[in-house]
């Protein structure tokens, strides 16, 4: 165990039991004992009034990589492309990566696979100091084997201290292989990234346990520090049309792959596109009660020129299709205005929309947790409020 209890000092007060987020401490014969659920979060160390809980230092010997640490400097982002066009998550990563690079006084490197030089230039305008470009057409379509071996090789050449990729279906599929190849850690689905002032390590914050809790993850003894970042959480960097960066074209030759994509079937619904691009989202939950309620929200969304969102409850009921679902297992959105109608505000919903600029909640239960995150709260019946609001807006807009 990374943490042990010095039984001589343990007074049996049980304070540590309360402090442990993982239920990893039990009482045996009046003394605290750490069990296998321990995640080494070290919370109990400071909780113990007797100072009886100590670190065993098991971890320390792993600092083996640290003498080569100084070689690992820059911040690298994986610039995902689809059909040869840079995906918006790449621009968000440049925005986040730029901040980290400035703080570390390091360069921002983008890696682009299967696209043209013009797209590489575009990455430079969005903030990349250097773009490693592998324009081979064999990399145009996503492929786990090829992408992971190329990215691993580029990382070994460039030796970045930090590597970021989007937590998209593509990033979440192949980046774990890269981390395994390089024998380093990978933190999934981060929502916030910062540099620790003292150690200069990357603090990676992510939701866990279905969004009920946030965890800060570190990768102190291995390089690079790798993370996937949830799309639409980070802000894009600044676009400077006269900016240019160094473009390094690499030819890594053979991209053998053991899997083959034989066909791509497009099933993109307009809603998915709309919900990501809309400035205003009107979202319905169990409170909408059925199709009539949904129609009412659609009317409001239309009057505002916005899109329709949904909680999982409304989707599970079959009132609104899954493609509209916002939250932990749905989409993450950050519109200017998010209007929640009959949504209670479960954490799993909140993680998908919390970063919206303005949140308006309409709910008839004054104790609904959604009011805790709302910019404006209305306690009331949506069947009364929403139609009135729609009418009013139409009046103003002269529709």
């Amino acid at each position: 165990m990374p943490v042990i209890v010095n039984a001589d000092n343990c007074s049996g007060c049980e304070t540590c039991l309360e402090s442990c987020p993982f239920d990893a401490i039990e009482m045996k014969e009046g003394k605290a004992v750490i069990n296998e659920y321990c995640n080494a979060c070290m919370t109990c160390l400071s909780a113990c009034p007797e100072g009886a809980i100590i670190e065993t230092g098991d971890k320390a010997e792993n600092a083996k990589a640290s003498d080569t640490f100084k070689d690992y400097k820059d911040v690298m982002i994986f610039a995902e492309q689809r059909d040869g066009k840079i995906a918006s998550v790449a621009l968000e990563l440049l925005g986040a990566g730029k901040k980290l690079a400035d703080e570390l006084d390091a360069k921002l490197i983008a890696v682009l696979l299967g696209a043209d030089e013009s797209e590489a230039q575009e990455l430079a305008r969005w903030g990349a100091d250097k773009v490693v470009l592998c324009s081979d057409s064999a990399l145009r379509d996503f492929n786990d084997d090829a992408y992971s071996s190329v990215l691993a090789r580029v990382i070994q050449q460039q030796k970045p201290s930090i590597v970021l990729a989007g937590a998209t279906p593509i990033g979440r599929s192949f980046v774990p292989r890269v981390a395994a190849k390089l024998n380093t850690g990978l933190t999934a689905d981060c929502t916030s990234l910062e540099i620790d002032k003292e150690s200069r390590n990357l603090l990676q914050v992510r939701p866990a346990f279905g969004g009920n809790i946030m965890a800060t993850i570190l990768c102190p003894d291995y390089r690079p520090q790798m993370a996937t970042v949830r799309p639409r959480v980070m802000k894009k960097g600044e676009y400077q049309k006269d900016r240019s960066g160094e473009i390094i074209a690499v030819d890594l030759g053979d991209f053998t792959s053991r899997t083959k994509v034989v066909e791509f079937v497009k099933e993109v619904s307009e809603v998915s596109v709309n919900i990501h691009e809309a400035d205003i989202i009107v979202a319905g939950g169990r409170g909408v009660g059925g199709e009539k309620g949904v129609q009412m929200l659609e009317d409001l969304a239309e009057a505002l020129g916005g899109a329709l969102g949904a909680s999982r409850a409304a989707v599970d009921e079959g009132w609104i299709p899954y493609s509209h679902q916002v939250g932990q297992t749905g989409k993450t959105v950050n519109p200017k205005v998010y209007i929640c109608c009959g949504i209670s505000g479960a954490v799993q919903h909140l993680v998908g929309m919390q970063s919206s600029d303005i949140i308006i909640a309409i709910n008839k239960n004054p104790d609904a947790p959604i009011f805790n995150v709302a910019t404006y709260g209305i306690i009331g019946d949506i069947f009364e409020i929403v139609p009135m609001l729609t009418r009013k807006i139409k009046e103003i807009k002269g529709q």
Partner: protein
Amino acid sequence: MNIIVCIKQVPDTAEIRINPETNTLMREGVPSIINPFDLHAIEAAVQIKEQHGGTVTVLTMGPPQAETSLREAVSMGADEVVLLSDRAFAGSDTWATSYTLAKAIEKLGADIIFCGKQAIDGDTAQVGPETAEFLDIPHISYIKKIEEVTDSAIRVQRMMDEGYDVVESSLPVLLTVVKELNQPRMPSLKGKMAAKKAEIKKMGMADINADEKSLGLKGSPTQVKNIFAPEIKAERKMIEGTAEEQVENLVKELREIKCL
């Protein structure tokens, strides 16, 4: 056809609440369940066995309590169940978990390995692809349909952002599955009987040829530094009055901030 399904026992996160005073998870009374995605993985494996013959081995790495989940897997049609448990595995992150699972899978041997897309406690979706890398075999993520299986190859549909890919792979291969793939069966009476009697094979560090330094917390590159409750914005403004007044005032606010 030897099929291995990796399952994880997880707390039912729908039931987890956070203690507002201590900022910790309240796990008490929260039931442990098979990770929901893994139920679909078991179902897929059993269906392939029913059509092509072979054996389904369900593997989990976890504390001794995980035995209950393995018995449940037997009731759904698993032929063999393996509990990978050792104090040395405690505190594993996804890297160390994948390394350990891969070492066990090497020992057991498999043509197809199934994982869930992600576990609902950690939500990382990393263990499947990392395990495949350690085994040096291909993987395909987010399988929503299995189109064809032969003795040496497989064709499946992989869910993507804007549709799906039809992907072929040689065997052995590791697949991670999403809920759209199938409807997990309810245990039959016969299955429940079998579950009671099933013998659970136990494996520890000594049985899998693993490098001790790569196991558990010691072998984990990532560390949890701290845990805290999700931050909540507190700038709310309640709009009071009759329904008419509320709408009137909301519209006024929206115009002020130039949303209308």
